[in-house]
Structure formats: C-alpha cells, structure tokens
C-alpha cells in the first residue's frame, strides 16, 4: 500500500470516527445511538486492520477481528436487548441540553488538540497526527457519561470513551498485544453485561432508568 493511499484511508477513517462520536451526542433517539455505536465499532476495526496492513502484522489483524466481533456485533446486540426491555426510546432530559453539549464538544475537541500537540511532536507520522481525534472521542465519551441521565446512554458514553482509548492506543503504539486486548475486551463485555442487569433491575423497580433516582434514600 502506498503512503498516500494509507494516509488518505487513515484520515478518512479517523474523520468518520470523530463524526460518528459527535452524531451520538447530537441524536436523542437511543436506537439511532446504538446504530452509530455499531458503525463506530466497524470503523475502529477498520483502523486496526489498516494499521495491520501497513505494518504487515498478523497480530493486528487478529485484534481487528476481535474488535469487530465485540464492538460491532456482541455489544450492540446486548444494548439492543436492553433497549427493547426498557420503556424509553429517547434520551429525554439530558443534564446539558443538546445545543450546549454541541458547544462543549467543540471546546473538548480543541482541548484534545491542544493537549496532544507535545505527543504528536515526539514522533510525527500520519498515525500520531490523528491522535487528537482519539483523545477527543475519549473526552466526548466522558462528557456523554456525565451529562446523560438514562442508564443506556451512560453505558453508551462509557463505550464511546473506551473506543476513544482503543483508537488512541492504535494510533500511538500501533496497537496493543493480543493478550492485553483480550483482557480489556472481556472486561468491557462483563461491565456492559453487569450494567445491563442493573438497568433491567432499575426498570423493574422504578419503571424507568433515570439514574438520578439512585441518589435518594427510600424505604
């Protein structure tokens, strides 16, 4: 693969990765958010596969396959099941309204760019120059995590953050060893499953999954 094609593909994948993360903040429809998360999983796998093709590393291909299976197939299925069992189809009352969260996302992206400049300066290459995007997605995920109320949106925020961390790892270090990736993936799967059970219990107890209810003591 020539360097120009590689750079072009890398930039396109990273751009789309960021675009999907922003769209997840913009949409309120939870089903659409889960769809976007699936697309982001595919993009992350494509990123790993692209880096694998660049470095000719079989290990990265395996990691890409694992990412694809977990983030584009298994997790969306789990999330869709949670969504089907719950009564809410929309993120109705985020703590920060959508317009303000768009502006916050703007600032977070610029912050990610400012913070990652020393990192990029260490070893400038097409991959490290895209690191701000990975960091920005981490920030956006964290923002979604703290500003949303519904259990499912918070899980999505958590997954968004994890996607950002994985993307940053791929871009900085050219991927992580399979054993580490496996550990992280299983951890992630377990967390999401536990959160699904928690959301289901919330649904049964309160009739909705607004996590603010957990702050008050009840008889």
């Amino acid at each position, binding site marked *: 693969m020539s360097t*120009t094609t590689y750079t*072009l593909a890398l*930039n*396109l994948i*990273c*751009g*789309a990765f*960021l*675009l999907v993360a*922003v769209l997840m903040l*913009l949409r309120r429809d939870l089903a659409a958010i889960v769809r976007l998360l699936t697309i982001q999983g595919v993009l992350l796998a494509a990123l790993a596969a692209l880096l694998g093709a660049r470095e000719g590393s079989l290990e990265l291909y395996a990691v890409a396959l694992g990412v694809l299976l977990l983030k584009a197939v298994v997790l969306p299925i789990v999330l869709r099941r949670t969504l089907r069992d719950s009564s809410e189809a929309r993120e109705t009352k985020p703590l920060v*309204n*959508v*317009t303000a969260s*768009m*502006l916050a*996302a*703007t600032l977070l*992206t*610029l912050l990610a*760019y400012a913070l990652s400049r020393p990192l*990029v300066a260490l070893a400038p290459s097409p991959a490290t*120059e*895209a690191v*701000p*995007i990975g960091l920005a997605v981490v920030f956006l995920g964290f923002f979604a995590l703290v500003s949303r109320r519904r259990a499912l949106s918070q899980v999505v925020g958590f997954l968004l953050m994890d996607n950002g961390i994985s993307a940053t790892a791929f871009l900085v270090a050219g991927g992580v060893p399979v054993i580490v990736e496996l550990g992280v993936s299983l951890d992630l799967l377990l967390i999401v499953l536990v959160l699904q059970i928690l959301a289901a219990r919330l649904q049964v107890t309160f009739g909705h999954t607004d996590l603010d209810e957990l702050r008050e003591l009840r008889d």
Partner: protein
Amino acid sequence: MNAYSFSVAGIGVVLLQILFVVAGAPLLVGLMRQIRARLEGRVGPGVGQPWRDLRKLLSKEAIRPHGTSWIFIGAPLVLLSSTLVIVAVCPFISTVSPLDGVADLFAVVSLLLLGTVALALAGLDTGTAFGGMGASRGVTVAALAEPTILLAGFALSTRVGSSNLADIVEGTLRVPTQIFSPVSLLAAVALAVVILAETGRLPVDNPSTHLELTMIHEAMALEYAGRDLAVVELASALRLTLLLGLLANLFVPWGIATEATPVAILAASAVFAIKVTALGAVLAAGEVFMAKLRLFRVPELLAGSFLFGVLAVSASFFLA
C-alpha cells in the same frame, strides 16, 4: 489570468453567468416544487410556474402598507442587488473572471448577510406581529448559520492558503484526492445544513406554507405585493441557486471552465446546470420525507452544523 481578465470575453463570461443564473433560478424552484408534487401524488403546476408568477406580479402595482418607511421600499432592492453581486462574482461557470479579486469568501458571506438583514428590517418596519416575529426568527437563524458558512469555507481555504473562492475551486481541481479528506466531508455536511437554514427549506422552514406559527422567511415578506413581491421571490430563488451552486462547485468542481474559449464556457454552463439541478432534485425529494423541526430545536441543528464546521477547521490542522 490577468492578460484577458478585462477583455471583452471576460466581461462576456460574467454577463452570461448572471443571465444564466437569473433565468435558471425560478426554473430550479419550479422543478423542485414539481418533483415534490409528483412524489406526493399531485400533478403539480409545471416547471415554468414561478416564471409565470413573476411575470404576473411584475405587471402589478406594488401596494405598500400605510406607515411604512423607505426601509420597506428599499429592502427588496438591497436584497436583489446584493444577491446579484454574489451571482456575478462567484466561480460558477469559469474560474477566470475579471471580478476574480472580489470573489472573496468573507465578502460573499457579508453580502449574503446584508440581504438577510435588509429583509429582517423590512419585516420590522411593517410593525405587524408577523413581520416582527419573522424578523426575530430570521435573524436568530442567520446569526447561527452565517458563522458556520465562514468556518466551512475557512476549512477549505486553509489548504490553498487563500479565501478567494476561485482559488479554492482551482486548488481542488489540482489535487482531486482532497475531496475525500475528512476536512471536505465535515465542511460539506456543515455547509449543507446551513444552506437548508439559509434558504428556508425543510426541516428549518417550510417554503410552501403561510402557517403563522412556523413561518420564517414568508413572515418577513408577508406584506409585500406586486413588483416588490416579485423582486423578493426572485432574490430568494437566486439565493437558493447560488448557495447550491457554491456547494456543488466547492466540493465537486469538475466541469468548471478554467479558460475562456466559447466551447469550454458553454460546456461548463451545461455541467453547472446539471449539478445544481441534481442537488435541487435531491433536496426536493428529501423534503418529502422530512417533517419540519420545532423552532426551538432549530438551534440544536445549527449548533451541530457549527460543530462540524469547527471540526473541519481543526481537522485541517491535525489531519494535514
């Protein structure tokens, strides 16, 4: 470029572009209405209907409400003339034009804003409830939309190092692969959303209704009649055409004439017509499937497009 810039041919190209766009704009509006009508199962009035409307309105006397000032009389003229200046300077048919020096992104955006402000002032000048409401809504949308146009254009201009529209178009022609860069994609999304808002299309404004609770553009132009209304209608058709034309030529510039031979100019005119018609058809077909957004949700959409603009600009730095 300058050798022939001020020649007869150069001026001819500009005149041709103005005539072409002015003649085509109402036809584009007619075509979009016709497509919508057909998709909704109506027969439709035909593509030429906006021109017939304009002819009828132009032959009628302009009735002005009692108590309105010169602002009300002047606004349609300011709107139309500022729009005509943009039509003259933008690189629609040819990238070489004697007006090349003024085809600056910032100048074009400020001229667009000038027209919007003129119409908003006219809406306020009538002193009616709907005029004031329309003006306040129109200015709200414009205040959110114009920065996004600037940002999207700025993102495209960083890679050629110039905010001249013809230079941006030529830069894209030279390096076609940059169309597929994230900068272009993000800027295209941002600009497309803003064009919907600027031209008052769904989901921001419904162009085919006079429903008082939702209208934006129509509310400002509500008191106009006869000749004045014809001017306002023509200007809004022109704005739609020129924004679609800008979108087409900034992101898909192929087919634009880079020299001034008659054949190249004619071919470029045809290609431009096809591009704008295709964009208009897609827009009209898309509108059939869309509902109008609640007014208070519009800032959400525009803030989103602003964010895309910012991302496009920042991506032009970190994904150079």
